[in-house]
């Protein structure tokens, strides 16, 4: 669609006089404005990927963003392997076979919480006002942000895996098993991300987003089968661990990376992810209409 440029000629000659006296810039701006080019609107995938590109540019300019995805996993892996290894499994090498897939999940889930604080900061700076005023598929700015985070999570997963191999982790599923497990973790964390986007649209400061996120993440990760087999836990805790979606994720990742059958935990993980997107994606987009 092109603009009807004639309609303005009969306007009350605004600024017409000033134009001649104006320097070079005025005419350059005029020629920039004269472009009536209207490219055909891009689809949802294209705009989401463009926002993913924005996330990568931000990593390029603010490489400190990679601190958490490298330091957290190394710290967690070393700490828990040596802290619990001897006591729980008799040796660290035995324990790491059990722990490593779980610690990958733990590391990534801890990092997902930055999604919310980053969005809160962006909202405060007003850059989302521009994004929201564009004629594009509404969720694309958020989807792109989560896609950019997936890149950071992949780094975290890779770091954890390499460190694990160094410490004696020998997954039965080989590289293929690792890749499938990693995809499951990325899928789940993408879905989980919508909880944080929703929180950051509801809460007013990034500090409170961080606080509430911790409140959700702590029981979700520690109240799971990441560190120990739930069979020794009291009944009420077992009941929580059983329904905790993180347990299903850990069970399936453990299985596919270990080269065994994940059973029902794999479809359950996928169903949980779909439910999280459906519920928190919808809530997020509802709040996004009026975001401030």
């Amino acid at each position, binding site marked *: 669609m092109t603009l009807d440029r004639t309609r303005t000629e009969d*306007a009350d000659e605004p600024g017409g006089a000033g134009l001649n006296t104006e320097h070079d810039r*005025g005419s*350059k*701006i005029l020629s920039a404005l004269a472009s009536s080019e209207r490219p055909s609107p891009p689809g949802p995938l294209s705009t989401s990927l*463009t926002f993913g590109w924005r996330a990568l540019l931000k990593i390029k300019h603010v490489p400190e963003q990679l601190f958490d995805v490298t330091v957290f996993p190394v710290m967690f892996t070393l700490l828990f392997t040596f802290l619990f290894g001897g006591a729980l499994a008799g040796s660290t090498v035995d324990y790491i076979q059990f722990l490593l897939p779980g610690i990958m999940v733990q590391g990534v889930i801890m990092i997902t919480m930055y999604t919310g604080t980053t969005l809160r900061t962006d909202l405060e700076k007003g850059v989302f*006002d521009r994004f929201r005023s564009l004629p594009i598929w509404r969720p694309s700015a958020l989807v792109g942000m989560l896609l950019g985070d997936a890149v950071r999570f992949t780094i975290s997963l890779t770091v954890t895996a390499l460190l694990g191999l160094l410490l004696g982790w020998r997954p039965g599923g080989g590289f293929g098993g690792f890749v499938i497990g990693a995809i499951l973790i990325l899928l789940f964390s993408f879905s989980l991300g919508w909880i944080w986007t929703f929180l950051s649209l509801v809460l007013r400061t990034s500090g409170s987003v961080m606080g509430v996120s911790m409140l959700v993440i702590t029981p979700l990760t520690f109240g799971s089968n990441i560190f120990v087999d739930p069979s020794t836990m009291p009944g009420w805790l077992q009941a929580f661990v059983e329904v905790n979606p993180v347990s299903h994720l850990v069970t399936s990742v453990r299985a596919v990376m270990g080269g065994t059958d994940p059973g029902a935990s794999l479809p359950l993980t996928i169903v949980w992810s779909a439910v999280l997107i459906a519920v928190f994606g919808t809530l997020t987009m509802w709040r996004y209409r009026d975001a401030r």
Partner: protein
Amino acid sequence: MTEPAMTDLAIETHGLVKVFGDNRAVDGVDLAIRRGGVHGFLGPNGAGKTTTIRMLATLARPDGGTATVLGRDVVTEADEVRRRVSLTGQFASVDEDLTGRENLRLIGRLFGYTGASAKRRADDLLDAFALSDAADRQVKKYSGGMRRRIDIAASIVVTPELLFLDEPTTGLDPRSRNEVWDIVRAMVSSGTTVLLTTQYLDEADQLADRISVIDRGKVIAEGTSSELKASVGSGSLFVRVMDRDDRDAARAVLERELGVEVRDEADPNALTATIDEQGRVTRALSALDEARIPLAQFSLGQPTLDEVFLSLTGHHAEEKTDTEEAAA
């Protein structure tokens, strides 16, 4: 898709309302703004200008009333509105972590330019806005004026039919302010309608063809700058006496002859009066002469927008607001 009935109105609202908690930030705004030129939204901080603009730009949903922009409803046809308008906010809105060029490429790609053409469009705009040298610097390292230019450039990656400019010169030095004014004039002459909010009276006076004066969520007056001034009185008389000791005597003479209140200016030699009838001015000046009060200077001018504001709202347009907001 059926085109809505052609309308020459860029913006039309009826009883627009936005409530935050128990604060009616926008409290029944009716607007009918024609296409073309600059329409000014003038009002103090917190008057509801920005909130109104946010609703018109589909960034906030009205709590009451209706609004159409370029003939499209801002709620039910939000995407149609977004395709035609652009917004440069007070604090909006490019990504500070990215460079100027990256920001423009980002917007270009979101509008559907392919990689290479997005880059070309970004370079053209950087050149037009004299930002080529800073193109590869992060926006957070830009000066205030550069920052405002990149914001505006980002708003016209695809030429909008209507541009919302929310306080484009707040916090800028006079030179950068003039640059932004030049940009606004260039845009208007190319056919874009501009809705400008400002708390600066001279800015509205300089740029706007018509002005809506907003105070406490309501439009309290509308018209051209001259109409608004005329509504206050035919003008104001400014008198400067030669000797400051004569000022009291001069004030007495003027008040008698003009029949209106005469005010002391900050300058100890100066007096001003808002006058209803120009005819009385000549008489008043002769009376000063007869009273042997020598004048250094006198002039008859139109009232300033500040006087307009004062007479419409009972308070000045500038100063007041901070204390008001602190009290709220």
